[in-house]
């Protein structure tokens, strides 16, 4: 697949449908040995990757608008989902909710001794 930067990378996609992976499937299933390999994929572009990243960062930044931190760390997972004809990137889900971890810190130079703190939060 192609990253938005144009750099090609290989991805191994686990087909989500149980029909392709599970022993308990009720319908037809292709019977290759490996997990489905994405095609050589100069034509498969990772849709929504940049938008996903930009959206998360912008949302966090907006939430801290009134308390702009001096440093900000945002951790989140990107899940690559195979759909017919496309690979999509979405915020990775853990237990049904997407997790974003935020760590912000402030250097309180204007308040006497230096002070720093951090916050972490999960957001759905």
């Amino acid at each position, binding site marked *: 697949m192609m990253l938005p930067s144009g750099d090609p990378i290989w991805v191994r996609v686990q087909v989500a449908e149980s029909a392709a992976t599970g022993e308990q499937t009720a319908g*037809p*299933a292709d*019977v*290759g*040995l490996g997990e489905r390999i994405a*095609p050589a994929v100069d034509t498969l572009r990772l849709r929504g990757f940049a938008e996903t990243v930009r959206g998360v960062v912008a949302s966090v930044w907006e939430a801290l608008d009134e308390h702009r931190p001096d440093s900000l760390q945002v951790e989140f997972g990107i899940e690559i989902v195979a759909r017919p004809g496309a690979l999509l990137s979405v915020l990775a889900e853990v237990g049904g909710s997407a997790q974003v971890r935020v760590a912000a810190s402030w250097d309180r130079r204007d308040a006497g001794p230096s002070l720093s703190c951090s916050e972490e939060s999960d957001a759905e």
Partner: protein
Amino acid sequence: MRREDTAERLLAACSVRLDTDAGPQGTAFFVAPGYAVTAAHVIGGADGLQIQLVEGPHNWHGHVADVRPPHASETAAMSPYPAPDIALIKVDDGPEHACALLSRQLPGAGARVMARGYTHTFDQVAVTAETETFHLTGTLETPDRDCRLLKLGLGEVTKGMSGAPVLDLGTGDVIGMLRTSRKLSSNLGGWVVPADLIRLLWPDEVGLGNDRFHERDSRWREGTHQLREPSAAKEGTAAHGGASIEGDVVSVITGGNVGSVNIEYGRRSGHRDGSGTL
């Protein structure tokens, strides 16, 4: 010799394990000198992908030369893979090899067939050859109006059998390539891409190549001659005759060992398109 034994040896002579850089992916079989086929989903629809074919001590290097359907980027993640789900492999380097005798016509209803593929049935780790018999139970139309799949039943299609040759136990011809299980962990069988379609998809490389190979080397036909005779329906005991002839011919084809390609194989060079011996 029982017809199942004959079939196993013939299938062993033409089928191989297909590996990529990621390891074993499924099965393929030789259809013409320098050419093999596998299911498109086995190689992820990746046209040009470098692959390796392995059978016992022998291995062949090659690449995916064509994929059907051709627009893999739109189909690679679908399951079941769109019809016909087949890829042509060009062998770039490796020893000479046998070729399956591709049928020109659909088998009769209820025909008994055998497939040979590379599975990890034994312990879910080691990839080993496995055979299974089925009955032809019908056909299945697909959205591709040029592709009508054959349906097998009364046998289990396990993971790894994609790309396996399916041999008609009544004629010795290979009727097609296994691609899909109708239901895993059941005896509902699977779907087969018919041999006549494989011929049509690549008329020069496969159709003509297969014909020329078997015109030049008659041993596959000779080895299956007994299967074609009515009396062969009563196979399995020496009392029905013909077993020794059949066994001798098949031994010549396969080197006498199931799983061994041929005693004359092994001369590694750039692949020669033509005068291979079985």
